[in-house]
């Protein structure tokens, strides 16, 4: 196996580790608070790459700069993350009859819109119409942020109906809802963007990204500009996240909710808003990871893109100790190393994940717990 211990693999492992860590923090923060495996998190990662692709320009770099596109992509993904929470998971915690119906109706409209979009774009179909296609494209894409806005304003104004109290939903139902959400987002992406594998246009990626960084040649590591960009971005975001969680008021609220939601609520913390914020932060980080992953691998932007990285990042979160942000970072790097040094196969990191779940279910930095339900 000595052929696997190459400098190339080391660089690859570090980059994969950094990316998995970026995704894993989203899983771990959500799991830490609402004890839910957010299956749709991998889809946020995929959407981040797609939105950056749309903003940059699908065929040629006609849109904005790739680096500038990261910011709107992050915002859009944050919006999607929050709407996922509002539409799918909120009602598992709180009964809001009007909001329940509204979110289902909105999801259905979104689905019908995406189907209509697909049909109007099909030249062999009787419904083919360029104008309707263009209008529907933006209508479908805009519906998610608009949904989020409407729901949050409605919630603030008490327009979503009187809450019938908190519900402690069955864990199985919550997980199945998450799987359903993941299915919906994947199919929506497939309907809107098709099933082809895409890449960022050549001229959108700055030249230095594909050049070797001279400084690393001294130590014999073949580091490309994009790998360095991944390391720097991931490191900066991790430091920022750590500061957010440990030093700010909202970070304290997040930790409080993670420890005991009821007590946190009694202390005046608006638990639902803290959870929404957690989704926002996690989704924004996943969006960055999605864009960087697409830049690193190249030609892999598709609706299936989020599945394997999402699962491996969840494995990373478990490995580090679920609910622990620093653990997720550590786990991400470890899983990245496992995959990087085994030639990129998915089976080995999965096997590691299973072993970890069986032997170390609380992970490396996890808090010991009396029982797990």
């Amino acid at each position: 196996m000595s052929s696997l211990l190459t400098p190339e693999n080391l660089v690859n492992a570090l980059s994969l580790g950094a990316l998995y860590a970026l995704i894993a923090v989203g899983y771990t923060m959500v799991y830490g608070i609402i004890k839910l495996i957010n299956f749709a998190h991998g889809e946020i990662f995929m959407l981040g790459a797609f939105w950056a692709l749309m903003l940059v320009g699908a065929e040629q770099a006609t849109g904005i700069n790739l680096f500038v596109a990261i910011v709107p992509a992050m915002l859009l993904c944050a919006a999607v993350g929050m709407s996922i929470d509002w539409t799918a998971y909120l009602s598992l915690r709180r009964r809001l009859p009007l909001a329940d119906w509204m979110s289902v109706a909105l999801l259905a409209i979104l689905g019908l819109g995406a189907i209509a979009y697909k049909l109007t774009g099909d030249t062999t179909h009787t419904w083919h119409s360029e104008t309707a296609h263009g209008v529907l494209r933006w209508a479908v894409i805009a519906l998610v942020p608009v949904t989020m806005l409407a729901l949050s304003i409605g919630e603030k104004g008490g327009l979503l109906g009187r809450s019938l109290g908190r519900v402690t939903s069955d864990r199985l139902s919550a997980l199945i809802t998450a799987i359903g959400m993941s299915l919906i987002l994947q199919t929506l992406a497939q309907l809107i963007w098709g099933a082809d594998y895409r890449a960022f246009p050549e001229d959108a990626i700055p030249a230095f990204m594909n050049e070797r960084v001279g400084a690393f040649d001294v130590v014999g590591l073949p580091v490309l500009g994009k790998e360095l960009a991944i390391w720097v971005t991931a490191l900066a975001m991790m430091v920022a996240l750590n500061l957010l969680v440990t030093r700010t008021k909202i970070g304290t609220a997040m930790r409080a909710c993670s420890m005991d939601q009821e007590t946190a609520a009694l202390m005046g913390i608006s638990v639902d808003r803290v959870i929404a914020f957690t989704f926002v932060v996690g989704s924004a980080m996943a969006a960055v990871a999605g864009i960087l992953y697409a830049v690193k691998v190249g030609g892999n932007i598709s609706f299936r893109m989020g599945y394997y990285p999402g699962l491996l990042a969840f494995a990373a979160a478990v490995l580090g100790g679920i609910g622990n942000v620093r653990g997720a970072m550590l786990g991400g790097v470890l899983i990245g190393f496992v995959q990087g040094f085994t030639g990129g196969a998915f089976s080995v990191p999965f096997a590691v994940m299973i072993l970890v779940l069986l032997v170390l279910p609380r992970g490396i930095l996890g808090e010991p717990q009396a029982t797990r339900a």
Partner: protein
Amino acid sequence: MSRTDAVFGALALLAAIVFPWLAGFRGTLPNVALYVGIYMILALGLNVVVGFTGLLDLGYVAFLALGAIVTALLLSLTRTESGIDWAIGVSHDVVGEPLLGFDGAILIILLAAGLACALLGVLRGIPTLRVRGDYYAIVTLGIAEILYETALWDDTNLLNFTRVTGGAFGIKLPSSHVPHLFGQKLYYDQPVFYYLVLALVVSAFLLTHHLNRSRVGRAMAAIRLDETAARACGVDVSRHKLIAFAVSGFVGGIGGGLYTLWSGTVAVKGLDVWQSILILCGVVLGGMGSIRGTAVGIAGLMCLGELLREDFGGVSVPPEARFLIYGLLLIIVMRFRPQGLLPPVRRSRAVTDAEHAALTTGHARLYDLRAPAGAAAAAGADAVEGT
């Protein structure tokens, strides 16, 4: 089984028996019926783990795939001049007689496929005994992904399973190797195949129904309601979980074998996580733990899928949109009816007021039988039922 259930079951069986006389054995409708029947067997198998035992299995497709592959391999065993060979692969020319070509051999082959999958279920189950809830779901998903990747692994230096699974192309059953039953070829458009599938659906029904009613089934229900409490009540949790995995795998393997016979090819490439999710959707929509619910749920889902292929006045739903609808259904059902469309009926009758009064005098007052469902309450109710 209540009287209404028995009447409905008998009517459904009668309808299934006379159905081909109305629709014929060839064409779209009978083909959809076979498709529904095969997936119904798979869903009934999955229901044993997900519904009865309360463990979310996201890797059930592994049983479908293994059952299908074992059946295809056994059917394609060929006696050649130089010995015994496998007639698999698309380009592989078949020279010689099928080894298991005698009439009725398919029953033995299906049994072997079922047993292989039961073994897989136990082997897969042993390491997962310790994990519960979400973690169990993730582990099963991970194992299925590992098996999927291994089956398609075509690196000639390392283990190469594509010799067995046919790789991306899959295994194609040679037409000379199509098995016979009662003197008839088991083609998808033959009456004997239709009635074989029907008989196996009924068997899966009866098997899971009696399992659910048995002592083992009650132990599984106790594990579902509260594993810790079940253990405390003396239920051998590991043993009953392994039984559930074995039965679930056995039924799934037979479903996989029928899948091979029905489609004539097995391509592992198409048997990915979506198949697991599809079958799971059927179980969840119908009602986890409910046999009739599972049957109705999966039948409804498959029929809906077929219906969406149709052309509605010039508008045909894009095929990929089917999973959008499945996802939406999952979310809606989980929100408004988390127990499913036809939830399981509580087996034990409610404790009457007189019994409650009698049981809660003195020290027994500690154990309120009308307390929220828990393994202890269920065990208590079963005890009352027994008296």
